[in-house]
Structure formats: C-alpha cells, structure tokens
C-alpha cells in the first residue's frame, strides 16, 4: 500500500480568540482527486492555505510526503504544493508577465511555444500572450491563473473554488484541464460547490463551522 501524500492530524487554526478550524484530520493518497465541501465561511479556504503554508496551523501537524510540512524549505514546498486562489488577481502588465513568472522564479528562460501550447489547453488563443491583464474577462483571468500553477506540474494542486462564476463552456474547459492533470498523476484537493467536480472526485471531505463532518 503506498504511503499518503498528505496527512493532517488534529489540525486547528485559531489566529485570535475564535477558532477558524478545529481538529481536522484526513489523509490524501498520491493521485487522488479529493473535494472539500461545506457552507461559505466554514474555513475551507483557510484549510487550503494551511496546506499551502500560507498560514501555519496553531495546533496539530501536517505531514507531506512522509515529512512534517515545517521541515520543508518553503519555496521548494510551494512549487510542489501549488495553490490556486479563488478570484485570483493577475500581476504585471500582460498575460505573458504572469505565465513567465513560474519560469522567472526558477531562473529558467520561458519557452514561448510552451506558453502558447498551455494557452491552447485552456482554449485561449496565442495572441492572448501580449494582452494587457486589464482587458481580460473573469473567466480568462481564472484560466491564466490556473496555468501559472500548472506550467511546472505540481505534485499536489490545491484549488479554491476555481470554477465559481465561470460560464458553462469555460467551466468544462477548466474541468478538462484539471482532469487531465489528475490523470497524469497530479493529486488534486479542491474546494468546490460544483456538482460535476464533486462527482469527479474520489471522495469528499465536508467542513462545517470549522469542524470536519464525519463521513459515513
């Protein structure tokens, strides 16, 4: 039996007086597609941010690939465990600035053909590379943001309601890209309200009011 990619043991997050998350424990196996469901404000995004090391748990431990999360060098960890934000904001001036960023931080030259091929997977034209980010629609922004996470394939992809607010066609494209990444071996942990994504998942973890609901 393979060892888990991610293990949360009694993880809690109480930044101030009120706890946001309490006693969350679950494991994710390599290659799984796990969804996290639950009402708004229940702490789902916080949970992803804890796993992404953008926040540190106040109690409990997170183990990634057999080692405590805290033992990893942060930049290396975040390049393997890639978090895509809900309503991401793009940076720089053009789409290209965003897509070359993963190359820049790895001190590698960006390959223009690779960038246009990546755009094509999201049904976006090559001409989009030079488009100013201020002229993009919400759906275009979301797809560009997801590409930033996928240009260097992560081991664990954390998705924070990435299809919320997208039209049906764009949603299909994004689902397809995520499913393909998962088929190539990328483990996916996705916060979602989307029925299709919930159906696509191997299993669903439900969080309500900062606590995990015991699955049947």
């Amino acid at each position: 039996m393979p060892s888990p990619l991610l293990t949360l043991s009694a993880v809690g997050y109480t930044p101030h007086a009120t706890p946001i998350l309490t006693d969350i424990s679950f494991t994710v196996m390599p290659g799984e597609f796990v969804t996290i469901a639950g009402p708004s404000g229940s702490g789902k995004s916080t949970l992803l941010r804890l796993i992404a090391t953008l926040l540190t748990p106040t109690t409990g431990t997170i183990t990634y690939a057999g080692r405590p999360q805290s033992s990893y060098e942060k930049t290396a960890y975040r390049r393997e465990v890639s978090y895509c934000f809900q309503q991401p904001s793009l940076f720089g001036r053009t789409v290209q600035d965003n897509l070359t960023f993963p190359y820049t931080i790895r001190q590698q030259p960006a390959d223009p053909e690779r960038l246009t091929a990546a755009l094509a997977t999201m049904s976006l034209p090559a001409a989009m590379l030079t488009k100013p980010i201020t002229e993009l629609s919400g759906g275009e922004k979301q797809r560009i943001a997801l590409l930033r996470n996928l240009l260097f394939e992560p081991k664990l992809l954390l998705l924070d309601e990435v299809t919320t607010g997208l039209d049906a066609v764009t949603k299909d494209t994004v689902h397809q890209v995520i499913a393909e990444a998962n088929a190539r071996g990328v483990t996916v942990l996705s916060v979602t309200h989307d029925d299709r994504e919930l159906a696509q998942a191997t299993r669903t973890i439900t969080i309500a009011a900062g606590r995990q609901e015991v699955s049947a």
Partner: protein
Amino acid sequence: MTHLLVTPSALVFAVALVLVALAISLKEKIGLERDLIIGVVRAVVQLTIVGYVLTYIIRVNRAWLTLLMVAVIIFNAAWNARGRANGLPHAFAISLLAIFVATGVTIALLVAAGAIAFVPSQIVPIAGMIASNAMVAIGLAYRSLNTQFRDLRQPLLERLALGATLRQTAIHVVREAIRTGMSPTIDSAKTVGLVSLPGMMSGLIFAGIDPTKAIMYQIMVTFMLMAATSIGSTIACYLAYPQFFNSDMQLR
C-alpha cells in the same frame, strides 16, 4: 554686511506673520492653532539652542565634537523616519543604518573630492541637509511600502503561493518604494532655479557671495542629495521589506 542683521525687535514683528496664520486657522476652523503654536515655540527654542551650539562647535573646531554633532543629527533623523514607519519592526535600526551610510558616504566623497573641507562650519550644515533629505526620502519609502503591502496583499500572496522567494515576491514593491522616496529630490532637481531658489544658495547670495559661486555650491548640493536619497531609500527599503513577512515566509 549690516543689512543682514536681524534684530530681536525685527523677529518680534515677524511674529505678526504667525498671527496671520493663526487667524486664518481660527476663522476657517482648520484646527491647526495648537500645532502652529507648538511649531513656533519649538522652532524658536530649537534654533536658538542650535545657534549657540553651532557657534561653540565652530569656535573650538574639534573633529570629535563635529562628529558628535553629526551623530546627533543622524540619530534625530532616524528617530523621525521611524515615526513614519507605522509600526514596522526594527524601523529605528534600519533608518539609523540607512541615514548613517547615506550621510557618511556622501560626506566622505565630498571631502575626498575637496568640494568641502572637514571643518565644522561646512560638515555640520551639509550633514544636516543630507540627513534631513534622506529622512524625508526614507519616510516616503516606508509609507509606500506600507501602502503597497496592504493594497497588493493578494497578488503578493499569489507570488508566494507559486513558490517565489521573498525578494521575487516583493521586488516590484521595493522598486516602487525607492522611486517614491527619491521622487521629491528628482523633482526639485528638475525645477531648481525655475521654481525654488534653494536655501543654501539663497543663504550664500544673502550673505553677499557672488551668485555664480553660490550656484556652483547649489549644483554640488543637488547632486549630493540625489546620491544621499538614493543610498538612503535603497538601504532602508531592502532592509525593511523582509519585515513584512514572518519566519514562515508568510505575509504578516
């Protein structure tokens, strides 16, 4: 030079000018009366003390005393810059180092080039000009860092989440803050002589120095301030930006 004498009675008349400002503040309900009065009292007290101190320092002409005076100026400038840092950790130490290096390097270069002599009558005023400009530049740079780290929180988080180092995450913020810190010096360099006749040049002309000589000094001062503000704000910004992150490379 008798025409340069400002008598105490002339100064008393100048108080009338303050009364004009006070009257406007009262009439227009600007609410600055208290600050105006504090400002006037402090200006009179501080400048009187400094006048006597400078007279003494220039008269005894000792290197250690000159350096002590420069140290006091740098310390005060750093303390003031810290006040604009809005709670940034280690703001005083960062400001002190930045202003010390900016002032030290600039003065050392000027002395080495023979532009000024190491005498208190030249070192102390020049140090004051450099430190105060560096202080303003650093204060503006801090404000810019604070504003950007607040307004650009999400894009900064996204860079971090993609695995960027602190420098890769914040470099554009740092560059903008340095630009902001330097912009008043650059703007005033562009308009010097057209809009403002700066204090040093005006003072020399006042004192009867040939304006062309006064201008040469002013050109030196303009270049010196450019160097000092760029050194000061660069050091301050590069030391300050990591303070916006915690030891887990997260935004505070």
